C-alpha cells in the first residue's frame, strides 16, 4: 500500500494533468447544460403561467416527467437509445442535451416560483397606470423576479457541476471518466479518486462561497 502512494507521488504531474483536462471538459458540459436548462426553464415557466390550457399542460407534463426520472436514465436514452433509431450523438452533445432537458424541468419550477413571488400589488399598480399584461411582465415582474431567482439558479449550476460526473457513464471525457481511465492504467484507485474529489472541491467551494454571499445580499435588497 505504501508503494501505491509512492507511485502516486512519482506520477503526480502526469495524473494531475490528465485530470485537469477532464475538469476542463466538466466545465464545458456544465456550461452547455446550464445554458440549455435556463432557456428551457424560461420557456416552460412562461407556458406554465400562460392563459392557454394547452401550453400549461405541456409545461406540466414536461416538468413532471423529467423530474421523476433519474438523469442517468435520461442520458442513457439519449446516448444509447437514440443511436438505435439512427440518431447517433457524441458523448458531449448527448450529455449537454440530457442535462439541459433535465435541468430545464427543475428550473421551470424555480422560475415559476420567482414570477409568483412578485407581489400582486406590483402588477395591480402597473395595470392601474395603464400597462398591458405583457408590458407589466417585461418592465415590472421580470426585473424583480430575476433577483429572487438568482440564488437557486446559482445553486443549480453548482449541483450540475457535480452531476456531470454521471456523464462518465456515456463516455464523456470529463473528470470522472478520465479518472476511470487512469485507474485502469495505474491501479491507483483510492489515490486518484481522492485527487478527483479535491479537484471537484476546488471548483465547487469558491462557487458556493460566492452564492452564499449573493444570497445574503439578496436578503437585504428586499422586494415589497
Amino acid at each position, binding site marked *: 500500500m505504501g508503494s*501505491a502512494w509512492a507511485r502516486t507521488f512519482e506520477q503526480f504531474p502526469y495524473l494531475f494533468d490528465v485530470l485537469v483536462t477532464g475538469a476542463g471538459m466538466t466545465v464545458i458540459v456544465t456550461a452547455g447544460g446550464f445554458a440549455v436548462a435556463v432557456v428551457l426553464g424560461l420557456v416552460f415557466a412562461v407556458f406554465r403561467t400562460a392563459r392557454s390550457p394547452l401550453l400549461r399542460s405541456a409545461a406540466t407534463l414536461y416538468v413532471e416527467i423529467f423530474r*421523476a426520472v*433519474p438523469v*442517468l436514465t435520461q442520458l442513457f436514452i439519449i446516448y*444509447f*437509445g437514440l443511436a438505435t433509431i439512427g440518431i447517433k450523438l457524441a458523448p458531449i452533445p448527448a450529455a449537454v442535451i440530457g442535462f439541459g432537458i433535465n435541468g430545464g424541468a427543475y428550473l421551470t419550477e424555480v422560475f415559476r416560483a420567482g414570477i409568483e413571488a412578485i407581489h400582486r400589488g406590483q402588477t395591480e399598480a402597473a395595470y392601474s397606470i395603464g400597462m398591458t399584461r405583457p408590458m407589466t411582465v417585461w418592465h415590472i415582474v421580470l426585473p424583480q423576479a430575476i433577483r*429572487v431567482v438568482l*440564488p437557486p439558479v446559482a445553486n443549480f449550476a453548482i449541483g450540475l457541476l457535480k452531476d456531470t460526473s454521471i456523464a462518465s457513464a456515456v463516455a464523456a471525457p470529463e473528470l470522472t471518466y478520465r*479518472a476511470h481511465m487512469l485507474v485502469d492504467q495505474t491501479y491507483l484507485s*483510492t489515490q486518484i479518486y481522492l485527487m478527483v474529489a479535491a479537484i471537484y472541491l476546488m471548483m465547487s467551494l469558491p462557487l458556493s462561497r460566492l452564492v452564499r454571499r449573493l444570497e445574503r445580499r439578496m436578503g437585504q435588497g428586499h422586494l415589497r
Partner: protein
Amino acid sequence: MSPAQLEVATHEWMPQLLVAALGTLEMTALAYVLGATVGLLIALAGHSPRRFLSAPARFYVEIVRGTPALTQLFLIYFGLASVGIAIPAFETAVLGLGLNYAAYMAEVYRAGIEAIHRGQREAAQSIGMTHGQTMRHIVLPQAVRVILPPMANYAISLLKDTSVASLISAPELMLRARDLSSEYYMPMQLYLIAGTIYFVMAFPLSRAVRRLERVLGKGHAAGAA
C-alpha cells in the same frame, strides 16, 4: 415495438426489472434512514457551542456537499477494498448515499433550527432551561414544520440518485436495465421502460409532497422566518 418484442418485454424483462425496482426502493429506504439519522447528529454537532464537535461537523458538510456522490461511492468502494475490507456493492451504495445525503439533510435541519432559534432560545434560557432542554422541548418540535417539505423532497431525489449506484454495479433498476440492454441490444425500449418505472415510483411521491407543502404552507425558501 413488434408483438414478439412486446412478449419478450412483458415475460422476460418486466419481472426482472420489477424485482430490481424493489432493490431500488430498499436502497432508497435504507440510505434515507441512515442519512436522516447521521444528518441529525451532524446538525446537532454543528450547532453545538463546543468547537471540537461543531468544527468537524461543518467540515464534513462542506466536503461532502462539494463533491459528487458518484466520487464518494467510488472512494468508499475502492478505498475500502484497498485496505482489505470488501463490502458488497449494495451495502456500499447504501452507506455512500446515506452519508452523502446526511450532509444535505444536516443543512435542512440547521435551517429548521435557525428558523426558530433566535427569540425562542432567549425565552427558554430566561426560564432556566439548558441548551439541551431548549433544543428538545422548544426548538426541535417547531423546526419539524420547516424541515418536513425539504426532507420529503430528498426522499424523491434519493430514489433517483440510487441509479448512480449502478455504476458501481450495485443491484438496482438501472443496472438490471443495462444488463438486459446489452443482452437484447434494445437500449431504447429498456431504458424507456426503466424510466417509466421510476416515474411510477416517484410521481405519486412528488404529488404527496406537494400536498404536504400546501398543508404546511411552504416551509422552505427565503422568508420562512
